């Protein structure tokens, strides 16, 4: 048993680090570092750079144009990206619909969509959640009625992240209203330009426009846009829920956040000494440090198991629960560290192009909004309560 990376893995880390140092545009890096919203162009620019390097489909097999990385390499890549303030790759195309297409899609669908994902021609969004359904995906009510070669889709989706930029949506719809809850659901690909699709922004409490409601009124979707058989949508959705969740703890982000917190608390002064030397605050940082140490080893255990052929199932629920708690705690400590400087709110700076003359103000601006934004970590993708119920059921057999 050992916790060290192999020489090859360490060389790979150097390669990633070198790429990030030389390729990541400084302006984008700086916006990410300060917690400012990226434009679609920023996202596409960065994803194109990754794509040109062959690194966009990080978890794609080589056969489909991926780099063929091991789970360990993907972990190293994620860590280095977070440390370098690289933008997070928008996951809905590359990491979500693509694996479903590879597993359940027809050859035609694969040949059409996969290349468009890799060269960023399509921007995908996800149509899973519905108003009032919370974490209970199986109760969805958006219905698709067959009309010749088309489905006519009516319903409403919500929490559609970055849907305002998307031209394609993958979507769970009910094709058989009489089937039991989880049966009768199908997986459709919807062109957002189809008549009847409309997108309404949902502004979150941090003032950001990150999620949307998507209304579907008599939207005609070709039957050819169904992935898998009719009624097999739940199988696709479940596949995604267990697919490649070794990165779900957000370890790279947590490490970066702790690093940032320590630097901040070393710089900020409290009664003439660095805040990091104030015993109460230091104690909070030490606790977070320990939690991160434990979480890192747990994450590496799951990654190593995946590398050796295991399928991380409910273990990823453990990673999600503890990872989200830790990242929320770190965002809380960052906000606390700033003290009164965490109070001012500058949406035009964070979400637009307005600049702040005062450097300290700019450095501090994202802390409180991010604290509020991070509340989502314990809610989305199945709330932490749902995750615990999954562990109780599948690992503990309760």
């Amino acid at each position, binding site marked *: 048993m050992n916790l060290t990376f192999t020489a090859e893995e360490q060389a790979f880390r150097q390669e990633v680090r070198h790429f990030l140092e030389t390729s990541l545009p400084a302006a984008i890096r700086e916006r990410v570092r300060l917690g400012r919203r990226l434009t679609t162009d920023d996202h596409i620019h960065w994803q194109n750079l990754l794509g040109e390097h062959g690194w966009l489909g990080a978890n794609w097999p080589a056969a489909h144009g991926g780099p063929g990385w091991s789970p360990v390499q993907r972990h190293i890549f994620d860590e280095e990206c977070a440390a370098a303030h690289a933008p997070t790759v928008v996951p809905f195309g590359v990491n979500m619909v693509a694996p479903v297409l590879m597993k359940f899609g027809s050859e035609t669908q694969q040949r059409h969509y996969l290349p468009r994902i890799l060269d960023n021609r399509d921007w995908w969004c996800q149509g899973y959640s519905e108003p009032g359904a919370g974490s209970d995906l199986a109760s969805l009510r958006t219905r698709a009625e067959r009309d010749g070669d088309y489905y006519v889709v009516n319903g409403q989706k919500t*929490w559609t992240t970055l849907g305002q930029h998307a031209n394609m949506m993958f979507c769970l719809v009910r094709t058989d209203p009489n089937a039991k809850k989880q049966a009768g659901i199908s997986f459709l690909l919807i062109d957002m330009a189809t008549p009847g699709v409309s997108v309404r922004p949902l502004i979150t409490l941090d003032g950001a426009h990150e999620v949307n409601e998507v209304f579907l009124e008599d939207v005609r979707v070709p039957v050819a846009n169904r992935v898998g058989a009719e009624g097999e949508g739940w199988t696709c959705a479940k596949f995604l829920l267990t697919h490649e969740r070794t990165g779900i703890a957000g370890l790279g982000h947590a490490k970066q956040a702790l690093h940032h917190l320590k630097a901040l608390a070393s710089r900020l002064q409290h009664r003439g000494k660095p805040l990091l030397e104030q015993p109460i605050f230091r104690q909070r940082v030490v606790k977070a440090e320990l939690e991160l140490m434990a979480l890192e080893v747990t994450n590496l255990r799951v990654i190593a198991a995946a590398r050796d052929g295991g399928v991380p199932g409910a273990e990823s629920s453990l990673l999600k629960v503890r990872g989200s708690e830790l990242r929320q705690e770190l965002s809380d400590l960052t906000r606390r560290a700033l*003290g009164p400087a965490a109070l*001012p*709110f500058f949406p035009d700076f964070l979400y637009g192009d307005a600049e702040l003359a005062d450097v300290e103000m700019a450095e501090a601006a994202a802390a409180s909004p991010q604290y*509020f934004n991070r509340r989502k970590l314990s809610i989305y993708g199945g709330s932490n*309560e749902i995750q615990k119920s999954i562990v109780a059921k599948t690992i503990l057999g309760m």
Partner: protein
Amino acid sequence: MDFSYSDEQRMLAETLERLVADQPAPERRASQPDLAAGQCSPLWHTFAELGLLHMPFDESVGGLGGDGTDLMITMQALGHGLVPEPYLAGLLLPGDLLARLADADQRARWLTPLLEGEHQLALAWQESSARYDIHAIATSAQRHGNGWRLDGSKQLVMGADAAAAILVTARIAGEHPDADRLGIFLIPPGTPGLTRSDYRTMDGQPASDLILESVTLDGQACLSENAAAALDATFAVGIAALCAQAVGAMQSSCEQTLAFLKERRQFGTPLSTFQTLQHRMVDMHLHLEQARSMAILAATSLDRPAPERDYRIAAAKAYCGEAARFVAEQAIQLHGAMGMTEECLVSHYAKHLVMFDHYLGDSDYHLEYVSEHLSAA
């Protein structure tokens, strides 16, 4: 030992409850227009008519002599409705300092119109390097002829945009040997050398940064040359008020969350039937009731000797800060994604309850005070 309200206090609570219930809900007032300097809102005038602006001040300065409990009742109601009017920043803090320090002329000029609702004031104490320490003042006041010259900068002056004058803390430099002397000066807007930049806080309150460059003032602008003790007393009042406001907001958050859990169904039954959510809701309720106790302790300690008062005030603020965060976070969590949207009432309360910790000293700051003054017996 008495925790009941007097008849007058019961009337006050009921009046406020009705008044607050008539206000637009917080999620619908996000983009309220800022008031021009010197203007007060219609609700503020109603406050004046009801005597709410006289209430917390001593009869000797024209107030109604309300005690900590009256103040608690008022702030709890304002917190419950998340009423944006700056009762604390625009009235209570500057008014309390004036009541303690102003001479008759200054009272007539600034305090009386404040109590009548004719203008609001602001108090500028925060400096960027001071963190939460109200005594760590770098802004300097130098004698200048018969008057004063002030230089420095102030952050996060709440309600400065609407204030008829700003009370500014400054260290009196130069002729005095005692380096600790803290002065308080009244500066009307438009005074040459005063620059103001306005913004909103994370929880939507108007605030400003001030730069003071050779601001010259006449002698009458000085409220006190030795205001440290008065400042402590005023901040004790302010913290007690803030705790009560947070308790009101916590109570409302609990009510909203409970109603949501009872109404919203998942997996075929109301959320309120899930045992973990029931127990979490009970935990919120426990935090609320314990925080309420600490707010009561703070409100009833304002007339105690300073060391006892300040110990209890620090304990209350530290405790309420942690409880408020717990309630805010759980209110969002139990609402699910809904609770994260601006359209959902509870998100506004959550912002208020979390950022509450950043006003007048956070939990750690006050914990440190308690720790340093902990009796070993």
